[in-house]
């Protein structure tokens, strides 16, 4: 927990509380609750949070040496295995923290936005666990293309509210959730899914996620006897990123590498309002979105551009204000990896280490492949989530490309297409 940052939630010029007036009381109430429960552990909030993260979430999460990658890159590669967290991604650290906080605050209803559905499922799980009614806003386009996660939310008892405005994706879902919050501030808590949004969300979400680096820092000292030369994490909004970085920020010898989605290109199409990437740290510029001042993908008028990434969870036009600040300070290095390299890294990790990563996570490994010389002799890569949710996308996107490491899926064609010779014959 950082208690030494400005109370107004600013990170350099970034951060702040750019929200409609009607939300300000909720924000202030949340600030107060954040200070009391999270920072000061009032009523033993943090103890309960830690205990539930352990028993329900499965923490501590191992730090695993990756034997094959270490050999491949001739450097010690350690994996922080957030893919093993309940729900399959780091998202639960935050969702569980916020839903528990809402409970301490006496709220009676949970709302959240979701794009790929990862934050939505984590929130639905946490809400079910803590017996809180839960509604998730999700763009209709996303609902159609993320069926399994919609199932999971519904199965966990959450309502899924389709957002039919605009393109029907994450941006619209966030706006819609804010709107719900604005009309139901009194009994409702809005669980934001990354280190974005108005203060205190960026600080609070980071604090909930910082258990990643708290554990990893201790584990690497135990396993390797020293701190790493670098920590590598993918960055969408940046919650797994700051979670993995937080406890290393003051270790100035540890390089912190935030890997953004390079998408298909870093060049934007202003006319269409589309950036074919989600590299807001690398290519965006300052602006105000969803309650915070931060780096954004926007056109020269200040209209927000659609972002793009093969990975739905990185597909966001903004980024956490704290990361924007740490990048400006030179403490965090923003890098990016394109769709193709991320897909290759997905296959490589699956084949070489027996870990199917989320497509988001695969970007971090894509960086390792492209720039092994940048990570030093000992690196920790944050495996922010598992890839089960991405199987259909990966198969589809892989089939479109000519990748070096892709498995072929012809087994489905063989089936029913006549008999395959058996290998053994007794007589």
């Amino acid at each position, binding site marked *: 927990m950082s208690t030494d940052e400005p109370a107004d939630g600013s990170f350099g010029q970034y951060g702040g509380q*750019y*929200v409609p007036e009607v939300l300000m009381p909720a924000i202030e109430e949340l600030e107060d609750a954040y200070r009391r429960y999270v920072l000061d552990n009032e009523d033993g909030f943090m103890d309960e949070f830690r205990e539930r993260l352990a028993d329900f979430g499965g923490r501590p999460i191992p730090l695993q040496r990756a034997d094959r990658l270490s050999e491949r890159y001739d450097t010690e590669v350690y994996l922080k295995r957030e893919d093993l967290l309940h729900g399959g991604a780091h998202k639960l650290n935050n969702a569980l923290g916020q839903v528990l906080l809402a409970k301490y605050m006496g709220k009676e209803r949970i709302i959240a936005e979701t794009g790929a559905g990862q934050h939505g499922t984590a929130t639905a799980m946490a809400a079910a666990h803590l017996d809180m009614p839960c509604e998730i806003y999700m763009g209709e386009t996303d609902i159609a293309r993320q069926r399994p996660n919609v199932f999971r939310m519904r199965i966990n008892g959450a309502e899924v509210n389709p957002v039919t405005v605009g393109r029907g994706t994450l*941006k619209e879902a966030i706006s819609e959730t*804010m709107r719900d919050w604005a009309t139901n501030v009194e009994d409702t808590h809005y669980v934001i899914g990354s280190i974005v949004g108005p203060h205190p969300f960026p600080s609070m979400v980071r604090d909930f996620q910082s258990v990643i680096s708290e554990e990893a820092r201790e584990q690497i000292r135990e396993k390797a006897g020293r701190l790493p030369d670098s920590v590598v994490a993918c960055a969408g909004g940046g919650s797994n990123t700051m979670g993995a970085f937080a406890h290393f920020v003051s270790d100035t010898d540890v390089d912190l590498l935030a890997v953004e989605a390079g998408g298909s290109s870093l060049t934007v199409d202003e006319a269409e309002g589309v950036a074919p990437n989600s590299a807001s740290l690398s290519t965006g510029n300052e602006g105000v979105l969803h309650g915070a001042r931060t780096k954004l993908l926007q056109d020269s008028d*200040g*209209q927000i551009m659609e972002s793009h990434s093969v990975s739905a969870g990185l597909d966001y036009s903004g980024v956490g204000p704290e990361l924007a600040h740490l990048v400006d300070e030179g403490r965090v290095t923003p890098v990016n990896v394109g769709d193709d390299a991320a897909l290759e890294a997905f296959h490589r990790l699956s084949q070489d280490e027996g870990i199917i990563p989320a497509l988001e996570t695969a970007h971090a490994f894509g960086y390792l492949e492209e720039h092994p010389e940048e990570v030093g002799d000992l690196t920790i890569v944050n495996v922010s989530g598992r890839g089960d949710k991405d199987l259909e996308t990966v198969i589809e996107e892989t089939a479109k490309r000519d990748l070096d490491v892709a498995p072929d899926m012809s087994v489905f064609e063989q089936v029913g297409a006549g008999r395959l010779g058996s290998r053994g014959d007794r007589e």
Partner: protein
Amino acid sequence: MSLDAVFDSEEPAFVPYLAAGDPSYEASLEYVEALERGGADVIELGLPFSEPIAEGSTIQSAIVRALKAGMTPERYFEFVEEVDVDVPIVCMTYYNLIFQYGGSEGGPRKFVERAADVGIEGFVVVDLPAEEADPLREACDEFGLDLIFIVAPTTTDDRLESMRERVSGYVYVQARTGVTGAREDVSDQTAQTLDRISDWDVPKAVGFGIKTGEHAERIVRAGADGVIVGSALVDIVAEGHEGDEPVAETAEKLEAKARELKTGALRGVGAAVESE
């Protein structure tokens, strides 16, 4: 005319909202002018932003239409220059457009300068609470524009104070927070809020969910100096657009609706006087 001048009159002000450029630049000019004919005292003219987090679906859709039809900040300024109305225009938008207009130097000054140039009288910036507003306030002071803040029923006393220090032109009183469809009598919540800010020396205009002359009357009766109406007007634009109505016909409907609201508001004063 300045905002001060408007509210100096004894009459309650009727403050309609439309999104500039909805559903097209040309039609929108007609519609805004129709509002004035219908009795508008101030026009809140929306500059569409791609992420309108504070709007209901009606206005959200208006913004989507306007953006699709090519509205940009630059076109907006041209619109304000071109539109033929005498009443003051207040620019209602989101902070990023103001901020971004500053280019590489950033900050709101250039936007305000240009707004002053085209004759805009003030701003409502939906996602800019008083605490974050100092740079904009300074620029407004420099160019003589007003900065309007929104007061919600839930706004705390502390926060009222920081708005009071920074507000000018009028204060926008949000009538309620409740969920659509479950609305209690609007005038009660409104009256309470008005009461909390009764000693402020700016006029108080009330908006949020006002749809009829009847509503407007009650709002004024509750003590408002002005009545802000958005969705009820945007609905008419939307219907006209979807029904492929001739622009003039939609404009007439807008004018009529404006007149109904204005008349209602005027009745409110009478009634307030009467009921005393």
